[in-house]
């Protein structure tokens, strides 16, 4: 068990809840979702409580996060995109804090479960579709019919565009989930090598320095991936929201 690289992703029930035969149990995943929300909210509340004209360190981080998300949203979806700022900022902070909490040893990484990232992606796509139809009505469907295509090919191209659109939540969720899961598994595998090699006598102990170095390097890489994936998720969210705002450009 100590050497099983997949064990870290297992769910365990903390408080069993059963509603009409459906399992609504409070699991370790739920616990870390609550922790993520509490940490993100608590950090931002603490950081902005001072409201100094000259920001302190914490306020600086919070302001940078704001500026960064606002800049990304403005450049991808224009100034009208700012009406989605609360949602995009919440998503960014949730994914980022969840990824970073997952880097603490023995902690659970909620973004390494595809159902969690898929739910986040469906939230984004649901907003895009809902707002697109609310704002543009049936004109929103024009997104699927490209200009300048021969009439004969329009049904085929439209079908491809629709499938391409439907594949967005999948690729959005798979990207985040695959990065987090692959990284954490690799980290665990190399850490496991250290233990098994040092069990093989003095030569093994000397040799186990190599996987130890690899583990250290991978830990650094994982922190980079944690930030990068939160960023990628945010950028793609902004790009998809742009389609809802300007389906015809």
């Amino acid at each position, binding site marked *: 068990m100590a050497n099983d690289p997949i064990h870290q992703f297992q769910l365990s029930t903390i408080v069993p809840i059963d509603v009409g035969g459906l399992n609504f149990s409070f699991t370790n995943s739920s616990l870390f979702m609550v922790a993520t929300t509490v940490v993100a909210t608590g950090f931002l509340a603490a950081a902005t409580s001072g409201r100094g004209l000259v920001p302190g360190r914490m306020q600086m981080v919070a302001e940078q996060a704001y500026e960064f998300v606002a*800049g*990304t949203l403005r*450049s991808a979806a224009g100034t009208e995109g700012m009406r989605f700022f609360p949602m995009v900022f919440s998503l960014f902070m949730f994914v980022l804090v969840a990824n970073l909490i997952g880097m603490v040893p023995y902690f659970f990484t909620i973004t390494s479960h595809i159902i969690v990232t898929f739910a986040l992606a469906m939230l984004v796509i649901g907003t895009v579709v809902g707002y697109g139809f609310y704002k543009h009505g049936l004109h929103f469907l*024009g*997104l*699927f019919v*490209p*200009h300048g295509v021969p009439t004969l090919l329009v049904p*085929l191209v439209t*079908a*491809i*565009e629709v*499938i*391409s*659109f*439907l*594949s*967005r939540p*999948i*690729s959005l969720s*798979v*990207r985040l989930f*695959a*990065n987090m899961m692959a990284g954490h598994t690799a980290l665990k595998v190399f850490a496991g090598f250290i233990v098994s090699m040092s069990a093989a006598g003095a030569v093994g102990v000397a040799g186990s320095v190599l996987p130890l170095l690899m583990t250290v390097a991978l830990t650094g890489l994982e922190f980079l991936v944690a930030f*990068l994936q939160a*960023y*990628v998720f945010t*950028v793609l969210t902004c*790009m998809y929201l742009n*389609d809802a705002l*300007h*389906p*015809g*450009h």
Partner: protein
Amino acid sequence: MSGRPAGQDPADGSSEPQGGTPEVVASQAEVSDAVLAERLRQLSQRIDAEKSVKQSQTVAARERDMTGFGKAMRLSADFIAGVVVGGGLGWAVDKWLGTMPWGMIVLLLLGFCAGVLNVMRTAGLAPQPGETGWQPKDGPPRS
């Protein structure tokens, strides 16, 4: 002050009621309107220029931020998602309509096309949906 004709200076206009003050004031207002309009135009030009610079900077930054590994992950996820959605749709259509192999065959192929389209869009080799006036880049994106 003494060298300038009376009424040319707006501050003196009220203290000297004689000598066609209304027209002078009107022309003064016109001039300042024109000057203001000119200033406004210049300002909006400057803002536009700054905006376009900012836009191109963010686009360039986005491309630069894609590392090799990140790009591989992104492109493969895009492609696989297209094929998976196509196959899934085909399976569902077959299940509902009982057209056993055909829905899967057709939609899987369409999903394959959608996957390729996704990859080309991510790589910047095809226009985004609904985009007009798109120009292809002169070569594959930098890696």
